[in-house]
């Protein structure tokens, strides 16, 4: 039962000219000694975005929201939200994605001060705790205020709250991180690129690529520091999107230039694939153990030990590469290329208005997807299913890239069943890729002794068999999920939004 807010600056000598009313006395405990603090959030700042402030100071984690303050021990097994000790803070941030690690957005010194309103019996009627945060760096100091209501003393609480609220200019909790640590820009894996239907296709493509290139670069440090696996994932998704734009936005650039750029981005992604595969294996460790009976677990243990060791080597190699001069120079070169659309040699579609261009691309891709999907039956070879997946992915990317041009609600209605279809196709593909990659693994890797090798081979054999079953199950779902996607309403919306007379 309390509230929290942020005052900008520090509440110096408590500017209460007015004496407390109703026979109450304001007392303040002497300021505590300054301690180090760190402002914690995940890289994409879900806490900041939702108005939650998580501070580690001393041995305590404190979470402040508009509704009050929670605290618990800072002792923890790791930095993922699920690593926190059980407690109110952990419960209150249980909505955070479990793959993202907490990290310090910034550090500084913190001074706590306690205030109370007492009556003539020296009974506390209302309390407040103030924390002055003095950031390291160029940021501005702020004061966090947490009021505590005592049941039955509402008048005193209101009095204290009124005074503290008036003690300085307010900052929303969502602005705290940017005020304390202005140096680090907020991160979003899905950058907002402003354009309209009248923008030229080439300048839109260029702006989208520049934005995704920037996203990739923002993730480099996190990959090197190995904070969590999402950095590499986001890095790869951003680069993959750049490649999609290069191949899907047909004719915006000169064909020779397009080929050269595609190669450059393909070269950037190539050294990241194995590390991502290993990340996925290691993250899904529990899933694999559930697939096999206990008897085959020792082999899996040995296999996962090999995975972990290989991941270390892959990460070391990739980190070296990301820190290298040639890599840095290549990224700077590419950023310069996309900094100015005029510097890119035009293709035939360069000056088309992006609205018509987008509708044409989406409509064509949608028709192609439907054509493949409607042919699928029990006899269809696997590579046709892969084609369906690839076309579904391309359609989804196109719809995401051009989302600002179309009504959000209708787009969401189209994307939802498409995503469901894609999920099934994605699992189908993962199971298929994993079978061949595991089979290859057993041929190229050897444990320390023959006994371990044998155990690994047995477990791998079983795993491949189970994955094959799973793949068949997913495959059986493809047709029904496509039928869900291929509803009359969806067809009608696709036609209405994207089948323009001009592109017919």
């Amino acid at each position, binding site marked *: 039962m309390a509230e929290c807010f942020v005052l900008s600056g520090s509440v110096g000598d408590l500017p209460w000219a007015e004496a407390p009313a109703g026979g109450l006395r304001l007392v303040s405990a002497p300021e505590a000694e300054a301690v180090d603090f760190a402002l914690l959030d995940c890289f994409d700042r879900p806490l900041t975005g939702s108005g939650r402030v998580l501070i580690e100071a001393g041995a305590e984690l404190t979470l402040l929201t508009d509704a009050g303050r929670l605290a618990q021990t800072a002792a923890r097994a790791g930095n993922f939200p699920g690593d926190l000790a059980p407690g109110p803070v952990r419960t209150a941030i249980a909505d955070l994605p479990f793959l993202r690690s907490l990290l310090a957005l910034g550090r500084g010194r913190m001074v706590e001060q306690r205030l109370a309103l007492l009556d003539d019996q020296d*009974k506390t009627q209302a309390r407040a705790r103030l924390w002055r945060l003095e950031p390291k760096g160029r940021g501005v100091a702020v004061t966090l205020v947490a009021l505590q209501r*005592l049941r*039955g*003393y509402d008048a005193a609480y209101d009095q204290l709250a009124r005074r503290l609220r008036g003690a300085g200019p307010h900052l929303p909790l969502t602005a705290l991180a940017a005020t304390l640590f202005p140096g680090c820009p907020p991160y979003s894996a899905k950058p907002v690129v402003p354009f309209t239907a009248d923008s030229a296709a080439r300048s839109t493509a260029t702006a989208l690529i520049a934005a995704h290139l920037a996203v990739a670069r923002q993730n480099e440090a996190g990959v090197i520091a190995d904070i969590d696996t999402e950095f590499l994932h986001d890095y790869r998704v951003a680069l993959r999107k750049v490649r999609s734009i290069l191949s899907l936005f047909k004719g915006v650039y000169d064909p020779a230039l397009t080929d050269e750029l595609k190669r450059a981005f393909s070269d950037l992604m190539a050294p990241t694939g194995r590390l991502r595969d290993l990340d996925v294996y290691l993250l899904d460790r529990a899933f694999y153990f559930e697939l096999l009976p206990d008897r085959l677990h020792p082999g899996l243990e040995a296999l996962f030990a090999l995975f972990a060791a290989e991941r270390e080597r892959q990460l070391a190699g990739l980190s070296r590469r990301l820190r290298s001069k040639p890599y840095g120079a290549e990224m700077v070169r590419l950023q310069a290329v996309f900094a100015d659309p005029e510097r890119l040699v035009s293709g035939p579609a360069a000056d088309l208005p992006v609205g018509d261009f987008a509708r044409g691309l989406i409509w064509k891709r949608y028709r192609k997807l439907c054509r493949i999907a409607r042919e699928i039956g029990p006899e269809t070879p696997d590579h046709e299913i892969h084609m369906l997946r690839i076309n579904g992915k391309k359609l989804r990317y196109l719809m995401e890239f051009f989302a600002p041009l179309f009504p959000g609600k209708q787009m969401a209605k189209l994307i939802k069943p498409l995503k469901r279809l894609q999920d099934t196709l994605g699992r189908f593909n993962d199971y298929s890729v994993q079978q061949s990659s595991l089979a290859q693994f057993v041929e190229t890797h050897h444990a320390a002794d023959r006994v371990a090798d044998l155990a690994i081979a047995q477990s791998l054999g079983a795993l491949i068999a189970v994955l094959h079953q799973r793949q068949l199950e997913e495959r059986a779902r493809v047709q029904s999920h496509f039928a869900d996607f291929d509803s009359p309403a969806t067809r009608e919306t696709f036609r209405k939004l994207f089948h323009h007379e001009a592109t017919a």
Partner: protein
Amino acid sequence: MKIVACYSNKGGVGKTATAVNLAHAAAASGLRVLLCDLDPQGASGFYFRIKPSKKLKDESFFKDVKRFIDAIRGSDFDNLDVLPANMTFRDFDIFLSRMKNGRSRLKKALKAVNADYDVIVLDCPPNISALSENVFKAADRIVVPVIPTTLSERTFEQLLQFFADHRLNRRKLIAFFSMVQARKTLHQDTMARLRQLYAGQFLSAVIPFSTDIEKMGQHRAPVATFAGSRQAGQAYGALWQEVRARL
């Protein structure tokens, strides 16, 4: 929600000190506690510096649940609220039955204002009456301080007899030795005899006769807040642990 009554049919045995310090220890362990001051001569509210509420002298206050809730006061300690009331018998009777009934308006109203208590501690008046009979029925445990003297021994026997006569559950009674002076042979002998006579009825925690407990009146605060590391402060913590284990 559990109801713990602090009761003695003899005055001056440290009953109010028990209620205040047990409630404080329970709250400090993280439970949400409401301490109800039911003893017109008691001073639970005094020890928490809480002024008695005028509103509660109104006969019909229980007709309006909101007015009851408005009478609850937050203490200076986390998780610990106090109802500084001298309730009338009728009100108290209604209070007990409604606290036991999870679906009553009172319970719902408490929940609505985020005052969903885990433990209710009652500081009961020191006599055997119709009121105390209701307390004995409603409470989950009745904590009885007993000074290890011959006179106190007799009062405790009377209480047991009362339970027998009224077919009350004697196992609800938890006795402990209060105001114990370890150097007095009489105290030692009485304690040994009673422990043997009423095996299992007496807790092993013992509250010593202590100036720290007397000083509660000066400090107007639970012992643990000003003498937490001393014998008396520790003793109430141990007492609460034992009571909790029996809830």
